[in-house]
C-alpha cells in the first residue's frame, strides 16, 4: 500500500496539462499556465501525453464536441478541470491532482472506458473517426475504419496518386489562436488550399477577443504572441524570455518586462541563425497585403512580423509603465480571417504554423461579407 502511494505520488508530481483555451479566455489561460508552472507541472502538446485536461473559459458553439473528443483521447489516468476566471486555476488544478491520485476512481474510469469500447486501446468504436477534423467524405468508397484515404489531385508536384489529404488544423494546438480552425488540403506536408474559420466564439463576434480590461494584461497578451512565434520557430530560450516578460506584466511589474523585451528584440535582430531560418518564410508583398485587406505591417516574412509583434509588446508595456493600468492601449490593426487561408497556400505545415502565429492573435471575421466567397 505504501509503495503504491509512493509511486502514484511521484507520477502525479510530473503531471502534464493539455490546455484548451476558449475564445475570450486569454487572460484566464495565461494565469492558468502560470498556475501549472507553479505546481511544477508542465504543459502537454497533445492529448496523448496529457494527464489533465484543463478547459479555460466558456465552452460554446462547436467546442464542446472538440473537448469531448480530446477527453476521450487522454490515455488515463486522467482528470478534467474547468476554469472560468484568472483566480480559479490553482484550486482547479489541486482538485485535478486529487482525482489523479485516487487509484480506485481511476481504475473505475478505465474499466468503464474499456467496457464502453472507448478505452485508449486499439479500438475503433469510441473515438470520433477523424481525430484531426470533421470533414464529411461519406461519398467515398475507400474509407478503412471510416477514415477516407488521401485522394489524387490534378495539380500535384510529385505525381503520387494518393496525395491530397484534407485535414483540419485546430482549434486545440500548441501556440494557436483560440477558436481558430483552418481546413487545409495537404500534399505530403505542403499546404495546397486553406480556409480559416472560427469555432466556439459568441454568435455576434466569433473570434476576436473582448479586449482585456487593463493595460498590463493587454501587454502580457502581446508578449504571449511573441512567445508563440519563438516557440514555434524552435528557439526555446527566446520563447522563455518572452513568457517571463508576460508573467512579469501579469504580476504588474512593468519595468522588468520592458528591459526583457528590449533585450529580446536586440537578440532577435542580431541572431543570424534566426534570420537564416526564418528568411523568406511566408513572405507577403505589399500588393498581396492590399488585395487581402491586410495592414501594411504584415508585409515581409515571418521574421519581419515577429519584430512587429515585439514592437507592439514593447509599446504596450511602455504605455503601462508610463500611465498605469488605465492607459489606452496602442491600437493594433486586426487581421481579417478570410485573409489567413490564402497566406498559407504553398507553405509547408511548419511554415504555415509560423505564418499563423506571426499574424498575432487579433483575428476578426471579415467585415465585408462578399469576400468570404472569394477567399474560399
Amino acid at each position, binding site marked *: 500500500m505504501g509503495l503504491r502511494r509512493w509511486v502514484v505520488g511521484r*507520477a502525479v*508530481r510530473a503531471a502534464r496539462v493539455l490546455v484548451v483555451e476558449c475564445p475570450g479566455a486569454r487572460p484566464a489561460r495565461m494565469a492558468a499556465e502560470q498556475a501549472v508552472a507553479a505546481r511544477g507541472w508542465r504543459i502537454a502538446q497533445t492529448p496523448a*501525453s496529457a494527464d489533465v485536461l484543463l478547459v479555460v473559459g466558456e465552452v460554446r458553439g462547436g467546442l464542446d464536441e472538440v473537448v469531448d473528443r480530446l477527453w476521450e483521447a487522454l490515455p488515463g489516468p486522467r482528470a478534467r478541470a474547468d476554469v472560468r476566471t484568472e483566480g480559479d486555476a490553482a484550486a482547479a488544478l489541486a482538485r485535478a491532482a486529487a482525482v489523479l491520485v485516487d487509484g480506485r476512481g481511476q481504475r473505475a474510469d478505465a474499466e468503464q472506458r474499456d467496457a464502453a469500447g472507448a478505452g485508449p486501446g486499439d479500438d475503433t468504436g469510441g473515438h470520433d473517426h477523424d481525430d484531426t477534423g470533421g470533414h464529411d467524405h461519406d461519398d467515398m468508397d475507400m474509407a478503412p475504419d471510416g*477514415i477516407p484515404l488521401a485522394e489524387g489531385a490534378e495539380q500535384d508536384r510529385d505525381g503520387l496518386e494518393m496525395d491530397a489529404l484534407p485535414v483540419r488544423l485546430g482549434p486545440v494546438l500548441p501556440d494557436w489562436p483560440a477558436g481558430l480552425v483552418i481546413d487545409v488540403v495537404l500534399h505530403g506536408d505542403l499546404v495546397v488550399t486553406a480556409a480559416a474559420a472560427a469555432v466556439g466564439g459568441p454568435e455576434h463576434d466569433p473570434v476576436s477577443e473582448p479586449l482585456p480590461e487593463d493595460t498590463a494584461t493587454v501587454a502580457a497578451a502581446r508578449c504571449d504572441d511573441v512567445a508563440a512565434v519563438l516557440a514555434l520557430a524552435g528557439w526555446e*530560450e527566446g520563447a522563455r524570455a518572452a513568457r517571463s516578460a508576460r508573467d512579469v506584466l501579469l504580476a504588474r511589474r512593468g519595468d522588468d518586462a520592458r528591459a526583457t523585451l528590449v533585450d529580446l528584440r536586440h537578440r532577435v535582430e542580431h541572431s543570424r541563425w534566426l534570420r537564416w531560418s526564418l528568411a523568406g518564410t511566408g513572405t507577403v508583398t505589399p500588393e498581396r497585403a492590399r488585395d487581402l485587406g491586410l495592414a501594411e505591417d504584415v508585409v515581409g516574412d515571418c521574421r519581419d512580423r515577429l519584430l512587429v509583434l515585439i514592437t507592439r509588446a514593447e509599446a504596450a508595456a511602455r504605455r503601462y509603465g508610463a500611465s498605469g493600468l488605465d492607459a489606452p492601449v496602442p491600437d493594433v490593426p486586426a487581421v481579417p480571417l478570410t485573409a489567413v487561408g490564402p497566406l498559407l497556400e504553398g507553405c509547408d505545415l511548419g511554415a504555415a*504554423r509560423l505564418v499563423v502565429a506571426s499574424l498575432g492573435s487579433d483575428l476578426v471575421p471579415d467585415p465585408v461579407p462578399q469576400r468570404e466567397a472569394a477567399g474560399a
Partner: protein
Amino acid sequence: MPDPQPVTVGPGGVAAAGGILLALALAAVVLDGVLAARAAGLPAGAAVARPLDETVRLLRQRRRAPVSSDVLLWRLGGGGLVVVALLMVAVVPLGRWVVADLDVGVVWFNAMDVAVWVLVWLVGWGPNSVHSLVGGYRFLALALAYELPLMFAIVAPAVGAASLRVADVAAAQEGLWFVVWMPVAFVVYCLGVLAFSLWGPFAVPLGRDVAGGVLAELSGVDRLLVQAGRYALLAAGAAFAVPMFLGGGSGPVLPGWAWVLVKTVLLLGALVALRRRLPAVRPELAMEVGWVVLLPAVLVQDLVVAVVVAARG
C-alpha cells in the same frame, strides 16, 4: 594505454555495458533538467528527481493507439531506438574490454545510425496521424542532409588509423588525438550525433510546430521508450567519439576505462548543453547546410588526412 587486442566480455559484461549506457543516458536527462531549471530561475534540486517522476508517470499511464494505427510497426520503431543505441556501444572499447571486437566496427556504427532512419520513420508512420507523419517526413529530410557528411566524418579517423577496427583507431592516437588534426570531421560528427538523436537544432521531427511530430500520439511506456532511446543515442554517439577522435582510454593516472567514461561524460554534457543555445534548423534548409557546406568541408578533411597518411608512408 589502450590495448590493441581488447578482451571480448561475456554476458555479464554485456549487461554491464547496457547498464553503463543507460546510466549515461540518465545523467544526460538530469543535466538537461538542471540546465532547464537554471534557465528558468528555478531551484535545480527538483530537476534531479524529475526523470524518476516522469518515468513513473509514463509507466502508470495507459498505452493508446489511434484508429487504424499500424501498431506493430509503430512499436517496433519506438522500441528499436534503445536497441540501436546498445548495438552502437557494443563496438566501443572500455579500456581493455569490448562487447564485440569487430574488424569493421566503424562500418557497424554507421550501419546502426542508418537504422535510426527506419525506426524514426516507423514511429512517425505508425499512429496514422498527420502530425506524426509529417514528423517522419522531416526526419528523412534531415537524414538525407546529415548522413553523408556523418559517413565521411567517421571515414577520416579510419583512414588516419588505416583500420576499420575501433580499437585500432583508438591505438593509432598514441601521441596525438585525431580531434587535433581532424577538427572538421569531429565537428561534423558531433552534428551528426545531434541529428540522429533528434536533439537540439535537429529536434524538428518532434517540433512544437507539428504538435510534437513523431511524439504526438505516443503515451505511456511507448513514449518512455522513444524518449529513453533519444538520450541513449546521444550517449552512444558521445561514447563512440572517444575512441574515434578523443584518444580512447589514453590519459595520465587513471586507468583506461575511467578515461573513456570521463571523456564520454564531458562530450555528452557539451552536447546536452548545446540544445538551449541554438534555434531549430528548418528541415527544408538542412540540405543547403548539409551538402553545400558540411559535405565539401568534410571531404577536404578526408583528403588532407589521406595525403598526410600517404606522405608518412
